[in-house]
């Protein structure tokens, strides 16, 4: 029968953070004709008893060159929990050979030792990890030789133990539910005073940010706000973080939570000579990420600050000049302002005026048809005249009395 050479594992590399093994081996393709089908049977074994965990067949095509093949496997438990072993064998479909063909011998076994083989390896794994609601998680408790685990608890519940080795036992938590803010404790009690423990944070990936809205109050800064959607259930350094990037300028800013009202805000500096902004708001936490996008024409998203410093001049018995200041640079647009005039006698009147916007300037309006020797209350609010977006808040109310006739 045709039996290929025994394959040789080049490397078996663990990534403990993702519980993933990476296997690399050479296909020895140089000694075979081009284009043959090759099958690689890979076995993963575990525990002291080297139980088979999984067996897969990997397929490749030989290319008359020695190619290094690579394969990843993610364990259902932390690699620290116990030693993992890998072996591989091959089957080459040599079409030119008419006789029977068979699998090669197994390669030498490669081992990734667990912490249960290390003198100071005691503890619980995974350590302080974050998973999505509904996940299945395996925890293991590694202790000293001769110690006995009294019990292993997940939160308030005692779980049946799975023996991995003389120094390691595991529990399997299925369909984990959301943890509270400080996480769910997983405790391995060895004696009254000795226990190992870890914490599991169970939450949600970020929701797609909702109601993303961006506006400017001064053509200096663009302020974006949004609703986070479903809470992630993760807090502190694991909470969802937001960043805002703008495609055209390529700029990126990180966002923060407004301490006063808990509103999420992102401030983006206005770029000179840029009117259209193509924003992407990214939300990310240890479980996943989501994003929303928004394209705006800044001149159509003007929400001025409330007018300030109302003053009067040029007064006579039936008219007055009203002045006010707006903190912002509005040279690119026209402003529409509403002046609300009220006095004790008559009902309120609203006076609309439109004027070219200025740069951090004071604006003026002439108010006529007033009654002599009458005390009036004035307040002002403004918006963009060209494409209305939102009124500013009203200014403070200021009083003025016209002179006698």
């Amino acid at each position: 029968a045709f039996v290929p050479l025994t394959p040789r594992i080049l490397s078996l590399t663990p990534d403990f953070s993702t519980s993933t093994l990476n296997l690399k081996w050479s296909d020895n393709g140089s000694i075979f004709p081009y284009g043959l089908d090759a099958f690689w049977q890979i076995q993963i074994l575990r525990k002291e008893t080297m139980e088979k965990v999984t067996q897969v067949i990997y397929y490749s095509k030989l290319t008359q060159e020695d190619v290094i093949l690579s394969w990843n496997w993610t364990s259902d438990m932390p690699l620290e929990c116990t030693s993992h072993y890998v072996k591989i064998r091959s089957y080459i479909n040599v079409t030119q050979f008419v006789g029977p063909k068979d699998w090669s011998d197994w390669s030498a076994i490669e081992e990734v030792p667990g912490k249960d083989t290390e003198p100071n390896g005691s503890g619980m794994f995974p350590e302080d990890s974050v998973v999505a609601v509904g996940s299945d998680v395996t925890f293991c408790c590694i202790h000293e030789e001769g110690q006995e685990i009294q019990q292993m608890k997940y939160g308030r519940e005692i779980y049946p133990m799975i023996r991995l080795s003389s120094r390691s036992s595991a529990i399997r938590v299925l369909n984990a539910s959301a943890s509270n803010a400080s996480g769910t404790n997983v405790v391995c009690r060895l004696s009254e005073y000795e226990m190992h423990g870890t914490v599991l944070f169970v939450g949600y990936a970020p929701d797609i940010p909702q109601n993303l809205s961006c506006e400017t109050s001064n053509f200096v800064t663009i302020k974006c706000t949004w609703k986070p959607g479903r809470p992630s259930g993760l807090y502190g350094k694991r909470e969802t973080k937001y960043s805002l990037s703008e495609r055209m300028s390529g700029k990126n800013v990180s966002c923060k939570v407004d301490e006063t009202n808990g509103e999420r805000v992102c401030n983006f500096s206005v770029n000179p000579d840029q009117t259209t902004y193509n924003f992407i708001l990214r939300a990310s936490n240890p479980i996943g990420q989501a994003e929303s996008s928004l394209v705006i024409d800044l001149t159509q998203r003007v929400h001025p600050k409330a007018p300030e410093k109302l003053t009067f001049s040029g007064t006579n018995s039936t008219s007055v000049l009203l002045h006010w200041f707006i903190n912002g640079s509005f040279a690119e647009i026209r402003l529409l302002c509403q002046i609300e005039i009220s006095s004790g006698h008559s009902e309120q009147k609203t006076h609309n005026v439109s004027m070219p916007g200025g740069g951090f300037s004071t604006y003026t309006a002439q108010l006529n048809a007033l009654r002599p020797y009458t005390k009036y209350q004035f307040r002002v609010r403004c918006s963009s005249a060209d494409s209305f977006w939102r009124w500013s808040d009203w200014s403070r109310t200021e009083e003025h009395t016209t002179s006698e006739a």
Partner: protein
Amino acid sequence: MAAADSPSATLRRRDLCSRGIRLAGKMRSDVIDLLDTYVERQGLDASASVAVVEGVPAAAVEHWDEQSGTQRLLENLAAYRTFRTLLAQMLEEQREQLGEADAGLGRALAAVLLQVSAFAYHLEELLRLESRGAPSEEEAGPPQPLHLGLFERKLRGLGVLRELAQWAVRSARDLRQLAKPSLGSSSALSTAESP
């Protein structure tokens, strides 16, 4: 040998001691409340036995009766300075881990930290009365333990709060001892003074 106390010094000490005893009592009840909140919010088992926590001053003391007044004050002061550092570490960790999620626990921790600081100052006041002066600050403060997992930190916090509650009891007893007229004279305080 220090000169015998003036009546005003004796009165001042007795006043400081009685105010200190009230402070310790209030601190103890607040620490007990904080413990309940802490255990519940950290998902711990209230009956969990916590081994001796490294860097936390033990309230239990041998030969308590034989201690001099100055010794009592010095040991108390060193302990509360250490607790001030430990509680500040816990508060920092709490903010890092929970952010705004558990502001209540954060406020309770901060309140106890304030009381511990106030009590340490009170002890310094008593030591100044002995014209001995409080030891300089850098003598106190445990190093932050190397890498501790979150669960170990939760347990450590539990150990800190439990020991602080014990210290509040011991401090009240120490201050009562100091306030006793027979022992209150400075000669009783100074003879036991070690260089």
